[in-house]
């Protein structure tokens, strides 16, 4: 870790963070505000009428409690895709563009080795991811307790968010691995973003009907199951931890590749 670089990268990515914080604020608060204990039933009816459409966006059984509602509408799609896009942009800003534009020549012409650089950038990436998820958790908790007397089950909710962070650690370190491994942006960013996009699409497809249910085994997003996590299901916890372990594997791979590779600087 290098403190100077860390500070620089935190400072220069504040704007991007604020944009994404604004986006999740918008979706988060609107969706929480949409909750109506009575509406739950009519939504359930709609969901039975158009099961495929609802299912594709992860909204199976919208449920009746506020937590069920939030998990359905935010944690099935929006809070997977939005922070993922944030990660992709960060991977570009923290690694891919430095390699592509050649400014990494400066970052390497210093008495630190490549791994210090890599670890710092990776840490910045994870910190920003963590901050975005922490922010959205606090936001949802705040809006829910302001608008609804009963609020939501805090512990279950935080548990889900911790797992969400593991999922994003997994996805962003995967993107970061590609960003470290290729020279041109179309590969270094395209591969990570494309693969992540595929995961989301596969998950959407797998939920549409039982005949393609097997598709869920082809996307790591299946390992994040907000409803089971909220119920403190131990399997769901193991899956979430496997995401964290997976992210460590990506990081080690990134470090091994980056240390050995030729850089076009």
């Amino acid at each position, binding site marked *: 870790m290098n403190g100077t670089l860390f500070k620089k990268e935190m400072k220069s990515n504040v704007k991007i963070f604020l944009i994404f914080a604004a986006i999740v604020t918008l979706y988060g608060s609107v969706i929480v505000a949409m909750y109506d204990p009575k509406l739950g039933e009519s939504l359930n009816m709609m969901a039975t009428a158009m099961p495929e459409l609802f299912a594709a966006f992860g909204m199976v059984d919208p449920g009746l409690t506020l937590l069920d509602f939030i998990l359905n509408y935010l944690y099935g799609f929006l809070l997977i895709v939005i922070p993922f896009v944030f990660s992709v942009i960060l991977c570009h800003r923290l690694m891919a563009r430095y390699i592509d534009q050649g400014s990494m020549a400066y970052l390497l012409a210093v008495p630190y080795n490549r791994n210090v650089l890599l670890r710092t950038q990776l840490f910045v990436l994870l910190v920003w991811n963590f901050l975005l998820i922490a922010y959205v958790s606090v936001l949802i908790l705040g809006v829910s307790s302001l608008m609804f007397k009963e609020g939501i089950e805090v512990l279950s909710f935080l548990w889900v968010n911790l797992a969400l962070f593991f999922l994003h650690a997994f996805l962003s370190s995967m993107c970061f691995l590609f960003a470290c491994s290729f020279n041109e942006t179309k590969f270094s960013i395209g591969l990570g973003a494309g693969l992540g996009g595929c995961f989301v699409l596969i998950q959407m497809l797998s939920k549409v009907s039982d005949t393609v249910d097997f598709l869920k085994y082809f996307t790591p997003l299946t390992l994040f199951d907000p409803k089971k996590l909220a119920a403190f299901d131990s399997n769901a916890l193991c899956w979430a931890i496997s995401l964290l372990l997976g992210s460590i594997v990506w990081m080690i791979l990134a470090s091994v590749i980056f240390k050995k590779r030729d*850089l076009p*600087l």
Partner: protein
Amino acid sequence: MSVIEIQNITKDYGGHKGVFDVSFDVQKGEVVGFLGPNGSGKTTTIRQLMGFIKPDKGKVTIFEKDCFEKASEVQGSIGYLPGEIAFMNDMNGLEFIEFMAKMKKIKNKEKMQELIRFLELDPKGKIKRMSKGMKQKIGIVIAFMGDADILILDEPTSGLDPLMQNKFVELIQKEKERGKTILMSSHIFEEVEHTCDRVVMIKDGQIIAVEKMDNIRKNRQKYYEIEFENEHEARKFADYYQNVKVDHHRVSFFLKGEVNELLHRLSQVQIVEINARSQSLEELFLHYYGGDNHEWNAF
């Protein structure tokens, strides 16, 4: 003692791009010019010195440490100016210089200030809006501000106006007096001519000559251009020398020494005008580069 040592390195990018079996060294306190046309392998060699790429074959060391494996140890004693300008665009010039100073653990900022003054740089503007010359100056400040023992400069004067190029030559001369070891690539011959102790010439990824600057100066030819009264005289005169170009009344040729003899001959005919100048390093290089061997046996 050789500080920088390049031993038989090959880095093959395919299609005859890269460097092939390149070897040379830079002694302590020596200034070496690394000359070659665009795409000849200068930057590829320097990238290996900086530990950005690993040679396929051969060894690159600085202070006897492998430039790739021990890059971070080696970097502490290098001031580096990249050939391509690519900064962090989200900072202004001064912020970037200060950032690099911190990254390089440079505590004493006197040298930085001194360089900014010397190069007449106003570093406060947005880097994005800066001209190429301004950016180059920032790169130079960063390379020199750490007072590193070794300077590796890739095309240091590109983008600078002639006045600044002269200032840069001054800067190199000062650093040389202070005992710095310098390797600079260039295709501008004047700066190399005025700064370097030795010249390494590279073409198509292969070293074609390594020569001391003193030798080059000593063996350098003069270029003469003489205008005669008539073409007959011109042709007659041209027969005395080899590789002479005759254009009507005008005769031009290279000649090393033999000045008295030349003057004697010229005194016997009517001449209108005579011009003489030293052969430029560029012309000298062209002899190697073009494989144009006519009477070039000076070495």
